[in-house]
Structure formats: structure tokens, C-alpha cells
């Protein structure tokens, strides 16, 4: 019985803590406290609490993008159309001028022939 007591006293006897033990424990406590105070980052897609709102936002973005693309294409088409219009008018103007030139040439010859016949 006495040996058992002695063994127990030795096993449960106070022992000195190893060096730096206190500092390590305090540091660990500090870290634990800091981690607990830091907010957990939430992924951006988890910001929408309501799936319908997210869907509406996506559709709105698509609509705005689609309208922009359509407007750009329309403006391009208008520019092409105006250029084509100018080219047609220019081409027809030149055609008309040259047909008048041809007729003038024929008439000039006809007049000069009739002048020579009249002599």
C-alpha cells in the first residue's frame, strides 16, 4: 500500500514546465482568438440570396449586351448603305454624262455632214 502511494505521489507530483511552454500556449491562444475574429470570405456567387434575382441580373446583362451588338450592326449597315447610295448616284451621273457625250458626238458629225452636203 505504501509503495502504491509512493508511486502515485511520484506520478502525480508537480513538475516544472519545459522552457517556452507558457509562451507557446499564450501564442496559440492568441492565434485561436484571431482566427475566430476574422470573417470567413464568402464566394461572390453565394452573395445572391435569391436565385431568381441572380437569374434576372444575368438576363438583364444578356439583353443589354444583345441590344448593344444589334445597334452596332445597324450603324455598320447604315454606313454601308449610305456609301452604296453615294456610289450609285456617282455612277449614274457619270453614265448620263457619257451618254450625252456620245449623243453630242453623233450630232456633231451629223451636222458637219449636212453642212458639207449643203455646199
Amino acid at each position, binding site marked *: 500500500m505504501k509503495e502504491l502511494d509512493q508511486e502515485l505521489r511520484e506520478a502525480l507530483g508537480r513538475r516544472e514546465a519545459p522552457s517556452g511552454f507558457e509562451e507557446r500556449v499564450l501564442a496559440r491562444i492568441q492565434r485561436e482568438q484571431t482566427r475566430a475574429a476574422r470573417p470567413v470570405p464568402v464566394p461572390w456567387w453565394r452573395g445572391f440570396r435569391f436565385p431568381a434575382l441572380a437569374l434576372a441580373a444575368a438576363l438583364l446583362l444578356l439583353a443589354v449586351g444583345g441590344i448593344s451588338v444589334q445597334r452596332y450592326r445597324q450603324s455598320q449597315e447604315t454606313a454601308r448603305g449610305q456609301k452604296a447610295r453615294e456610289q*450609285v*448616284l*456617282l*455612277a*449614274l451621273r457619270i453614265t448620263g454624262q457619257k451618254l*450625252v457625250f456620245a449623243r453630242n458626238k453623233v450630232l456633231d458629225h451629223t*451636222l458637219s455632214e449636212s453642212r458639207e452636203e449643203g455646199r
Partner: protein
Amino acid sequence: MKRTVVVLFFCLLPAFGQQIKMPDFEHLAKKADEVVNVTMDANLLQLAGRFLSGKDPDEVKAKKLISGIRGLYVRSFEFKNSGEYSKSDIESVRSQLKVPDWSPIVTVRSEKDGENVDVFVRLANGQIQGLFVIAAEAKQLTFVNIDGAVDPDQLKDLGGSFGIPKLNLQHSKKSGTPSKDSKAKEEDEE
């Protein structure tokens, strides 16, 4: 020397639908002061038609004219000096028109001032399905090709539109002065 004018009457010919190749004439473009190069196929003409005004009289005429055509091609070069183009430049195009489905309706060769003009038409089923004009002036060379149904009345109407003077038969000279013929007549009567 006398000028020679040959005016041929066109006759009905089967249409073979031969397309005339219009060169770009880059060597002439380099020498020219002013170059006009218009190449419009059916799609472009249709697009242009949508943008032609329905109110402006000139544009209304233009819209009507292009409604039946499939292609409109113009090559025009204006030079500072005469002698900048050669006969071979003209022949490279004119030789393509020496085929059965193209008929010359006007051919003018003027040795006096060196100005020549050719007008060809392509007929199909009694209708003009193409027009080609070659105008060789001292300082300007122009090729015009219209592919498609061309109404001569509509072409005639071009005079008086787009700034083109209407042809006045009493003033046949370009300057607009009375013709020598009418003056000579007056002198004879005196």
C-alpha cells in the same frame, strides 16, 4: 481628215449572258489625277436602293433605274495631260465586246480631236439586258458597264438629273454656243 461615224442598228440576238471583265487599270490609276472606281453587284445595289430617298426626284429616278439591274461598274480616269492612256487599254475591254451577244449601237472615231466613243448593248428577248459605254477623251477615259434590264427611257431621263445637262438639239457644241450650222444658214439667207 474626215471623221467617221458608223451607226449600227441593233438586231435581235440570243443572249449568252457573257460577263465583261472590267480591269482595275492600276497603271492608269497611278497616273490619273482623279479616279472613279465603282463596282456594285446585285446585293450592293439592293442595299443602295434602300437608302435612296423616295422624295428627291433624282434619287427616285435612280431607284427606279437600278431596280432591274444586276451590276453597275464604272472605271473613270481623269488625267492632267493628254496621251496618258493607250489604245491597248481600250482594246483590253473593247475586244471582249466583239461577241455575238453584244451589239455596237454607236461608234465614233474623231481624228480631229482624238475623242472616241462606243456604246454597246446586249439584247435578250427584245429587251436591253446590258449597256456598255467606252468614252475616250483627250484627258479622260471612262468605261461604264450596266448589267441587267436597262430602260432606254430611264437612261434618257438621266439628262437633267444629277447635274447632267439636258441635250439641247440647237446647241450641239459643249460650250452651249449656237451651232455653226444654224449660223451658216442665217448667213445663206442674207
